């Protein structure tokens, strides 16, 4: 028996693929059906799809079913192209049961990773009982929608670059009074932590600082110099430790500007005791090795000290050296990296001509990224490095200086 209706072919795989959100820690399926492309245009060619998805043949085949047509290099596979732009449904909390404030740092106008983590923590508290997350920061809330912000309070743009913590604290206190949020979360960063403590002191409330784990009934933090875990039910004021919560992914919230009865600039009336704040130019070579982020280090293989100094300047890196270099007086003793010098934990360590004595490697165990230039392929430093270049430091250094200067002029 035939039906007069045109019967669409159902491609369960394509439908499923369209509903799959692949970003985030693990694939998630959207619950509501997604408008899939008409799938009946062409017949599937399983072999072609398979070929297009193949990204690696050896040692065993690996397939990437999420690849788009462009990167696949071959004809677009039906159903796969659609999955690449999953539409994340907007989550609207129209009538929040309560508010959770997230006071963000937003240093230099950018939403920092720590800010996202604070919003994620705030979501944990808000989602537990139908609450809404209100972000408070300079700038508009658009960028915060995908981080999980329901409402946004924009602080005056002029506040972004100023350091007037008293004004911010007054604004936070004003918001606390007008919105009566259930919780206020701050990043436990230098500025955010400072603000939180000012607000807590002014409000006479207990601050639960540096939250490490959070649930609707219990928050924990480190105390006694990191040796104890202290638990309590979530207090009103909390700061969120860095890297304790994963920022949200694959969500979209409104980040709707919040209508306020009173403008937050009420804080402008506070007469600040702190003034004339200005950034100081920092000479990277004046920084202590334990504080700096980027170290340019020289070992016995460096003979061209002129280039080394120029390179340090061009890179804006703090110069350091191995024991031998400091012994020889090319660098002062406090610039020595290693077990007998300073144990460093910079983000990047660029090592020229360092063989990698055990004592030196002990000194850089905390470094995240190591780049090594050495003439000896079998040097320990080459094994330790994330990028190793077997070459003479005296040739690479001038080339790198030239390259940096060229790029800077572009």
């Amino acid at each position, binding site marked *: 028996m035939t039906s007069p209706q045109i019967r669409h072919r159902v491609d369960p795989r394509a439908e499923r693929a369209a509903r799959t959100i692949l970003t985030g820690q693990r694939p998630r399926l959207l619950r509501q059906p997604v408008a899939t492309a008409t799938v009946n245009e062409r017949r599937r060619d399983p072999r072609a799809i398979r070929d297009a998805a193949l990204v690696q043949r050896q040692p065993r085949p690996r397939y990437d*079913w999420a690849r788009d047509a462009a990167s696949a290099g071959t004809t677009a596979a039906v159903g796969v192209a659609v999955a690449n732009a999953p539409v994340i449904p907007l989550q609207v909390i129209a009538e929040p049961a309560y508010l959770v404030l997230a006071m963000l740092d937003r240093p230099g106008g950018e939403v920092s990773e720590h800010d996202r983590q604070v919003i994620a923590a705030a979501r944990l508290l808000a989602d537990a009982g139908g609450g809404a997350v209100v972000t408070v920061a300079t700038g508009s809330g658009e960028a915060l929608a995908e981080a999980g912000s329901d409402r946004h309070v924009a602080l005056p743009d002029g506040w972004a670059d100023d350091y007037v913590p008293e004004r911010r604290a007054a604004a936070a206190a004003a918001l606390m009074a007008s919105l009566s949020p259930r919780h206020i979360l701050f990043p436990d960063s230098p500025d955010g932590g400072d603000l939180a403590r000012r607000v807590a002191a002014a409000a006479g409330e207990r601050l639960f600082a540096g939250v490490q784990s959070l649930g609707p009934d219990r928050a924990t933090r480190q105390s006694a110099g990191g*040796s104890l875990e202290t638990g309590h039910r979530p207090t009103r004021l909390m700061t969120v430790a860095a890297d304790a919560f994963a920022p949200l992914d694959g969500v979209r919230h409104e980040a709707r500007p919040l209508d306020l009865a009173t403008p937050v600039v009420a804080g402008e009336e506070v007469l600040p005791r702190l003034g004339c704040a200005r950034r*100081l130019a920092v000479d990277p070579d004046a920084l202590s090795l334990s504080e700096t982020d980027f170290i340019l280090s020289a070992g016995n293989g460096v003979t061209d000290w002129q280039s080394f100094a120029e390179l340090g300047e061009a890179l804006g890196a703090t110069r350091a050296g191995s024991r031998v270099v400091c012994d020889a007086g090319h660098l002062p003793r406090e610039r020595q990296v290693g077990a007998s010098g300073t144990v460093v934990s910079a983000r990047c360590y660029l090592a020229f001509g360092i063989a990698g004595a055990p004592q030196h490697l002990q000194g850089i165990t905390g470094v995240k990224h190591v780049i090594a230039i050495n003439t000896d392929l079998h040097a320990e430093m080459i094994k330790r490095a994330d990028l190793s270049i077997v070459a003479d430091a005296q040739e690479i250094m001038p080339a790198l200086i030239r390259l940096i200067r060229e790029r800077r002029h572009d």
Partner: protein
Amino acid sequence: MTDAAMGNVAVLLSIGRHPVSGRSRRAATDAQALEMALALRPRRLTAIHAGPAADAEALRAYLGMGLERLTLLVLPEGADPVEALITHLRHLAPSLVLTGRQAEDGESSGMLPYLIARGLDAAIVPDVVRIGPADTPDATYGKADLVQALPRGQRRALTVTGRLIATVHPSAPPARASAFGPARRGVIEPVAAQAAADLFLSDCEHRPWRPKPKLMRVKRGGSALDRLKAATESKSGKGQLLINPTAEAGALAIYDNLVEQGILP
């Protein structure tokens, strides 16, 4: 700030705790605060600790830095020291109060300096690395120039008016060594103080801290293979290796790598 204004300095000292051995010691940033205070050569320098009398011996490490005496506000175990400190400081009326940024033992919430600033109606500046009288030409009475440490070695200069509470950053000048002789001779003056028990802290439950697995930064986007690689590849010894490239190629590889790491713009 004129000499007269800088002449009365108080330092709040807590008992530290070595992160590995857990043994009592001088707290690192408190010792740096005392160092900063000693370097200012104030006319009057008062060092204060509030806590149980039983812990007093650990305070001798501060005396060994060259203090002759140290005031101990004797509190019962588990009491909140803030009120006692505020009462005592009101009486002393210092123009500058220095202390470490966070205690190494106890709640270590970093709130104490803020509560004291509130109690004394003083300005508070955290993470100070340098402090001195304002050198601006219009320097008036009661102004101080400070330098504050920011992340990644950045520095910010500030001018503060009026009474000031400053917490000291680990990048401040290192504390001088504590010497045995002065530590033994120094005098700890116990002063009885009133304090209420800290109810919040007794309401909390405590247990030993166990390190948590570090939060992985999941790289978003990219192909499945990239994500698989990012999640499974171990970092050490799996670096990229260039053997005898030309100087230009080597430099370019370093440059690109630095850009990728976000070190260079």
